[in-house]
């Protein structure tokens, strides 16, 4: 069983007839992902990118089998789209939509927890298992199959780092964006657990950024559980001033909390190798691997 998404994934695209939904349905299918249906209210009976469109997820499931969802609907409707996917038993639910009100995310995450569903995002590039399938908007060609699990709070920066890894001959098991919002379904700790239990993953890269304490929590977890797989990290935003939102809703230093330096320091304290610039990551991973093998 591949982590979160793989050959076995049969996904519904919610918001399939929008620009992004339609465009990425094509790219996901080209990458090999099974997209089995689309949903757009009021467009039932149409087809988008060769995929049948339904008015509701329930209506789609009367005709096809599915086990995952990717959501592109506009922010005001994203909470309910997530609930609709959860009610229908789809899992995981990947929410690409950005600019969702924090209160909506908060309620949706509580709903997901109650129903045992995994939410990736919101405001995420999605998740990819290179060579198998992707539920997301990442360019497939910068990734390559292999053993490094990558979790990130950002999109393009993940592609940048994945392409460094790929060029250095380091393939990836699963790469995912936890999302750039203050409230996301998965945090780094959740993902560290998944990677720990995933046989295809032998090392982990965390791509953090300023704001919140996801990185510190990950460091605590690594320390407390004596995390068995090597972890390397990069934290974006050392040059960011306090009190300013750096593009992502979650990327803001409040008071003295959430600075990149503090996060990097904490990572180093628990034995995580931290890159000063993203391009250092392949080298760090190789060093860390070597060190782990020596132990």
């Amino acid at each position, binding site marked *: 069983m591949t982590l979160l998404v793989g050959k076995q994934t049969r996904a519904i695209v919610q918001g399939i007839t929008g620009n992004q939904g339609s465009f990425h349905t094509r790219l996901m299918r080209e990458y090999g992902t099974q997209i089995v249906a689309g949903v757009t209210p009021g467009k039932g009976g149409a087809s988008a990118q060769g995929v049948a469109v339904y008015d509701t997820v329930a209506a789609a499931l009367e005709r096809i089998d599915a086990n995952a969802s990717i959501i592109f609907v506009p922010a005001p409707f994203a909470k309910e789209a997530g609930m609709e996917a959860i009610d229908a038993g789809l899992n995981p639910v990947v929410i690409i939509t950005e600019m969702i009100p924090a209160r909506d995310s908060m309620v949706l995450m509580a709903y997901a927890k109650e129903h045992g569903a995994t939410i990736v995002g919101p405001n995420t590039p999605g998740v990819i298992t290179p060579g198998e399938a992707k539920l997301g908007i990442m*360019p497939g060609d910068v990734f390559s199959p292999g053993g490094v699990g990558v979790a990130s709070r950002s999109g393009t920066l993940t592609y940048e780092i994945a392409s460094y890894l790929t060029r250095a001959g380091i393939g990836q098991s699963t790469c995912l964006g936890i999302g750039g919002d203050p409230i996301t379904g998965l945090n780094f700790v959740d993902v560290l657990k998944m990677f720990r239990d995933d046989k295809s993953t032998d090392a982990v890269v965390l791509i953090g950024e300023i704001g919140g304490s996801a990185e510190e929590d990950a460091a605590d977890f690594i320390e407390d559980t004596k995390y068995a797989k090597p972890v390397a990290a990069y934290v974006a935003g050392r040059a960011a001033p306090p009190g300013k939102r750096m593009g992502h809703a979650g990327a803001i230093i409040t*008071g003295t909390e959430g600075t990149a330096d503090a996060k990097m320091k904490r990572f180093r304290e628990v034995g995580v190798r931290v890159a000063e610039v993203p391009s250092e990551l392949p080298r760090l991973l190789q060093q860390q691997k070597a060190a782990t093998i020596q132990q």
Partner: protein
Amino acid sequence: MKLFEYESKSLAQNLGINTPRGGLASTPDEARDIHKRIGGEVVVKAQVLVAGRGKAGGIKFGSKPDETRDRASEILSMTIKGERVKKVLVEQKLAIKKELFGSIVLDRVNKCQTVLASDQGGIDIEEVASKNPEKILRHRLDPVFGMRGFDARQVALKLGYGGQRLNALTDLLSNLYRLSVIYDAELVESNPLVETSDGKFVAADLRVIVDDNSLFRHPEFQERSKEASAEVTPLEAKARENGLAFVELDGDIGIMGNGAGLVMATLDMVNHYGGKPANFCDVGGGADAEHVATALQIIQGDQKVHKIFINILAGITRCDEVAKGIVEVKKVVGLKKPLVVRMQGTNFDEGKKILDSAGITTLEKMDEAARLVTSPKVA
């Protein structure tokens, strides 16, 4: 979006939250008149969005109306942390028995709202948090059911109250929570939250930050959110109007890129190689030529920018569109500052061709480009 103290208090009053009697003044004379109307002694407070106005001298007292006029005059001529003071709040001085701290914050880790409160209010709460962390009480709220009466009561109880005061503080906390729900606030904070000598609880200061992502469902903030305020520099306001995520910084290298994380990493790398970024500018995913051109023009229009670094990792975004945008600016207004362009990904070849034929060099590696733009070679 941060609200001014007077805006926050006006919302609070409508929900029945006690605030000091007072009024808003734009001129010293208005301040004097407000004092005359409410009598007693007053406090004059600079209305700014930046924190730390107290230490900066933005809060003064007046025992007579004429004194209040003078103090208001002083404050109205101040600039606090770069923000010009345009208005002052003139409020009755409270008969303080105790100063508390109470806030309802978005709790990222627990995915809920959490009440932070302390019986040590009126001072910098971060100082309390670092010196006496046990003095800050945390009470998580259910993400779905929110603050129930007993949640608020439990907080008030832990703050040491009983009887009638317990109930009064419970009501105030419940109303602060309602404020956070009604206005989608990621922060509601009263510091100090004053217990007066006659047993009332009053939000002597009040800060509200509205979740920007919720503005679509808050028509009441529509006008306000468009106003360029001190929170946002004129350049930022202009950029945001044009759909750019933009933060002004104080260096000299203008930065543009696609994706918040990538742009942050670009700033870091420029810093790493000894440069100083002049801004954070994210054109987002799938930007077309026009969008790129707009961003570039805004950046080169900034006086303090001496050189520009464009860093694009194309996925949804296409290198040819980016190139077209750059060339368009060159044609229409000219490229006025030295420019380093790094591009990689979708339609790289087409993009490079367009830039080549306009005489603009492109690099493919981010590191290399960052080193170049920070070197004396580019000047």
